[in-house]
């Protein structure tokens, strides 16, 4: 087993040592956004107190340092994802921007009327709405891999759905409401067999378990830094070099051009081609620091830890009357969505908050899935490596109290 001192790890997160509504903060809203360790906060402070300048354009010391820090972060992210080279990493504000970038540029070049974009019924709005917009612009059609009763994808339907008309198969690695871990390598293989390009939404997996784009065999992968200990406004798109270089540019502006005349411009190759204007330099530096921090613990270790908490949570929630957990029993990530007969998710979340417990209630940007499951939303507890078994017990006690309170 691992020899991580989890208490010491937890102490790296200043925000956790506070009282909320008179109770110790019990932060279980990690699937929405994770907290930041001191190492990441310090990386930002150091950047601004020592190295800050604009990147790429300068021949002075600070500008060189800023550029090295920014490009160094790109190398870290590339390694973290198992990408073939740093040129395959485009920095974005997060998952949503990365998916929109693909839908707009790859989509403009490669999607035509009658083509099919295959999604799943469990996609976050961020991996659904951009494709709806692309379908509307191009006349392409959307298809969905159904979610089965047990919260997993109905893979037996894949043969029918993944036809030669499918140009893109975009799916989430881990469902943010059900917790389902999808068999991404298998899905990518199936897509490749019909010549479809794949995009993996790794928003929920990126900081939680080993993610390797070449093992997965995906063409694109999108993630957000803020869910993996990094600053808000950081994140990236991974794209296979061949695909990125075949895509038209996205935003026009400084840094993405080779030559500009008043009439026309020529564009750099990826990743610069897709990073017009001054980027979120400190955000990237913070993301690099988050990669280092997470790798210091180890993603396999984190997964093991989160899974242990999840199992314990499932056991404790199972004891509560009228509480029903959504999603599969096995192959699930570190989050638990559930309903409680006695209380609507919003009432339950308000109740929890008064006890210092941060949960999330609602549709979790999965409106159509909630409708399909005939749920008015769920309440979600999501774990990260700084959470403890004692916290899970405290959560269960608070929920038990809620059952009594709202009965």
């Amino acid at each position, binding site marked *: 087993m691992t020899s991580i001192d989890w208490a010491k790890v937890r102490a790296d997160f200043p925000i956790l040592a506070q009282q909320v*509504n008179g109770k110790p903060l019990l932060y279980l809203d990690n699937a929405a956004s994770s907290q930041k360790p001191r190492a990441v906060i310090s990386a930002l402070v150091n950047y601004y107190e020592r190295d800050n300048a604009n990147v790429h354009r300068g021949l002075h010391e600070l500008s060189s340092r800023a550029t090295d820090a920014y490009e160094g972060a790109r190398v870290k992210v590339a390694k973290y994802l198992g990408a073939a080279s740093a040129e395959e990493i485009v920095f974005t504000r997060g998952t949503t921007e990365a998916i929109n970038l693909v839908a707009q540029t790859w989509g403009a070049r490669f999607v035509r009327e009658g083509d099919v974009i295959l999604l799943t019924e469990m996609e976050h709005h961020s991996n659904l709405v951009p494709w709806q917009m692309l379908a509307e612009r191009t006349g392409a059609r959307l298809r969905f891999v159904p979610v089965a009763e047990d919260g997993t994808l109905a893979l037996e339907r894949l043969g029918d759905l993944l036809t030669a008309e499918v140009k893109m198969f975009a799916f989430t690695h881990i469902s943010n409401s059900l917790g389902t871990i999808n068999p991404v390598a298998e899905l990518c293989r199936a897509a490749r067999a019909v010549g479809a390009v794949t995009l993996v939404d790794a928003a929920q997996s990126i900081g939680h378990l080993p993610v390797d784009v070449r093992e997965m065999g995906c063409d694109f992968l999108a993630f957000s830094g803020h869910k993996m200990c990094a600053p808000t406004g950081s994140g990236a798109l991974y794209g296979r070099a061949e695909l990125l270089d075949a895509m038209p540019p996205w935003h026009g502006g400084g840094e993405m051009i080779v030559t500009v005349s008043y009439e026309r411009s020529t564009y750099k190759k990826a990743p610069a081609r897709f990073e017009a204007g001054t980027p979120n330099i400190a955000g990237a530096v913070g993301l690099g620091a988050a990669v280092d921090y997470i790798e210091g613990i180890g993603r396999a270790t984190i997964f093991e830890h989160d899974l242990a908490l999840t199992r314990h949570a499932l056991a404790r929630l199972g004891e509560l009357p009228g509480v029903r957990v959504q999603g599969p029993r096995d192959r699930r990530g570190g989050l638990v969505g559930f309903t409680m007969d006695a*209380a*609507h*998710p*919003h*009432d339950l979340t*308000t*109740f929890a908050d*008064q*006890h210092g417990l941060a949960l999330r*209630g*609602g*549709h979790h940007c999965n*409106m159509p899935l*909630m409708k399909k499951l005939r749920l*008015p*939303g769920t309440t979600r507890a999501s774990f990260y490596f700084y959470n403890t078994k004692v916290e899970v017990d405290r959560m269960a006690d608070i929920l038990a109290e809620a059952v009594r*309170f*709202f009965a």
Partner: protein
Amino acid sequence: MSTELDELYQSVILDHSKRPRNFGEIADGAVHVHGDNPSCGDEIDLSVKFGADGLVEDVKFKGMGCAISQASASLMTMKLKGKSEADAREMLRAFHDIVTVEVAEPPRMLGDLRLLAGVKKFPQRVKCAMLAWRAFEQALERKGDGPTVSTEPH
């Protein structure tokens, strides 16, 4: 236990949320309004029938959502019946006041609606308490149009 929670979820409120009064739809001659809070998924379908005298003759609602939105809707329907437009608007104003600011003496006409004053300690829940009222406000706007069967797009 948190006294704020006890004030927010008084037994009358929990009771109305579990067994809402005037739950249903008015079949004929009513103005129908659909309202929702997209960020939380609460929904309401309100039907309001105005009498020849302009008074609120009947109000019913269907909906799903949190205890606060359901209780507020249920209590509202009970209080609005028989009211004139002016009185109803006055009530709307008064109710909005008690769920958003400290009101020393909440007007008696609000009756049990006053029990929802606990909401003001929970600013994010104000929109839950107001959902039915916003729908009713729209029904008033469309009173002149006569009975409708369409629902309001967001």
